[in-house]
């Protein structure tokens, strides 16, 4: 299997998130952005096996899912910057990016809330017999919420073409998973609900690609699956959050060491799939792509005040 395409995508996500962090520091990104850096292998591994018409439902940490599924970086960034050429015309922002034309049905600001919605999307696929799958990404903390449980049961009961992807980065904001969960984790709970599940090293894109191939295929056969992907959250909960109160310097340094991109780079070179020079070249291309996204977003105007009352209801007069 060729890993360069995955490398490109992962690098795009990383460079994109670095740019978001920078733009936020300089006041170009309103609010907070929960960055996906460090977790790139998961979105990229899963989305590798998805078709354009498949669906993805995402979380507050959703930029990576969007880019991996095929969203345009410029329109994602414009949204994050609150501009009118953003996918949601500036109404959603980082936590609500959606790109329906790419099957991306939305990031979500409520932990676990997209899971029940994903069951409906998967049910639609099943009823239409359209061969599509729905993928619901969520963090380890979503496992603690009731809707997670209800969604597993629905998927199991109705044999839905639905893939649950738990990104276990050990943290919910400042609290580690051992202080939040008494049980055996998402994969075990899924099995109790009658789903198949696997645990995978989510920082190893090779392992992710392998597990995802199986998982997407099973889901497509209407056998719902859960993947529990071990990963690491870099830095704070969002780009502006300091971590000193709950994370040691050593721990933080270790996170970067686990970088899935650095890991893949070593392998690409070792296996001869690419040279250092080729990788540097790719990096240059990707940086240019992110530059272009920034240029696009910056030139996009802010929405006009009167747009605030649009899109509340389907027909404008319906608003009452």
């Amino acid at each position: 299997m060729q890993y360069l395409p995955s490398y490109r995508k992962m690098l795009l996500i990383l460079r994109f998130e670095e740019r978001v962090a920078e733009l936020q520091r300089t006041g170009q990104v309103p609010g907070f952005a929960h960055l996906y850096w460090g977790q790139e292998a998961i979105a990229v591994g899963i989305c590798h096996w998805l078709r354009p018409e498949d669906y993805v439902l995402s979380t507050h940490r959703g930029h990576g899912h969007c880019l991996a599924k095929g969203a345009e970086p410029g329109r994602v960034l414009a949204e994050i910057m609150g501009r009118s050429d953003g996918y949601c015309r500036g109404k959603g922002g980082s936590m609500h990016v959606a790109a329906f034309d790419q099957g991306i049905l939305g990031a979500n600001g409520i932990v676990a809330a997209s899971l029940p919605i994903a069951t409906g999307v998967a049910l639609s696929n099943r009823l239409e017999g359209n061969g599509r799958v729905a993928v619901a990404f969520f963090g380890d903390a979503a496992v603690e919420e009731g809707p997670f449980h209800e969604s597993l049961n629905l998927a199991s009961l109705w044999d839905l073409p639905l893939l649950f992807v738990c990104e276990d980065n050990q943290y919910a904001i400042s609290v580690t998973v051992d202080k939040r969960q008494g049980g055996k984790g998402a994969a075990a709970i899924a099995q109790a609900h009658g789903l198949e599940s696997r645990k995978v090293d989510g920082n190893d894109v090779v392992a992710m690609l392998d597990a995802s191939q199986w998982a997407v295929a099973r889901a497509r056969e209407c056998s719902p699956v859960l993947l529990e992907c071990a990963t690491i959250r870099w830095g704070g909960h969002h780009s502006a959050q300091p971590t000193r109160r709950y994370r040691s310097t050593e721990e933080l340094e270790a996170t970067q060491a686990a970088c899935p991109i650095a890991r893949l780079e070593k392998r690409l070179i070792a296996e001869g799939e690419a040279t250092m020079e080729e990788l540097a070249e790719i990096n240059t291309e990707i940086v240019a792509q992110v530059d272009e996204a920034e240029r696009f977003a910056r030139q996009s105007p802010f929405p006009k005040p009167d747009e605030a009352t649009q899109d509340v209801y389907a027909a404008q007069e319906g608003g009452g």
Partner: protein
Amino acid sequence: MPNISYAAALNLALAEAMREDPKVILLGEDIGPLGGIFTVTEGLLEEFGLDRVRETPLSEAGFMGCGIGLALCGWRPVVEIMFSDFLTMCMDQLCNQAAKLRYMSGGQASVPLTVRAPIGARNSAAAQHSQSPQAWFAHTPGLRVVLPATPANALGLLASAIECDDPVVVLEHKLLYQEEGPVPSGRHRVPLGKAEVKREGTDLTLISCSRMTQVALVAAEELTSQGVAAEVVDLRSLVPLDRETILESVARTRRAVVVDEGAIDYGITAEIAALISAELFGELLAPVGRVGALATPVPFSPPLEKTVIPQVEDVIAAVLKCVPDSPAR
């Protein structure tokens, strides 16, 4: 016009919608062989099959979300929540997701979801099966809220709700399900956002919704003997609210009493009373009266339930407070 029950009218709206549009699909507890605990889905499983009359686990958040997902993919789900009290189990899905997805996505998402749930006190069902929480949903931008008071409006409003591209909360009243009334034969739609003048009158306007419209009508009838000619406006929709019809009526009668079964404080009657008081400032002959449930949970024991829930006498008393000088008194 045939006479049918409110439950049968709702059933008819569902059946017709399902016949016309294969994308209409039902989700809920006990909606299959049992036909729903209030008989609204009777016979639909037999006609439309398990795929489209889909009984769910006891997972209100789960299947409300499922309805949203279906809606995002072009279906027109009708989700039944067995009692409106249980909407508390899926408030996030309804109020943070369904209500906001179109907006947050900048118009990409469309959520043509209909949520049906019974409100109201009936037969000592006690505090967790008797609420009338319409104010919560009316206060949630992105939702439309309708409350039929008659079989004809049940049919027409539910049909319109299903056709609407927005999430619509249809609140039905438990005590109305078995009430019969005339229903137009053939295609019938009631536009969302249009009130109905149920009775004309010159002295005062009673404004109400759901079963309280029936209570208001009885009160209006009894008031004739006291020399008061009350007009009765049935709101039908809370969102959008038909301000024109309300104001047109009260501009004529110059007195108004608003009646709702929800708890009185911060309830529906406040919005209507505030609207009338502001828009018809200086033209009213009396303060706008408000009749609602006492601000308590709904009690079990019959004499207590009766005390808490507005009765015909309460409406009459509120009217007479506004019309102290009515000829017959």
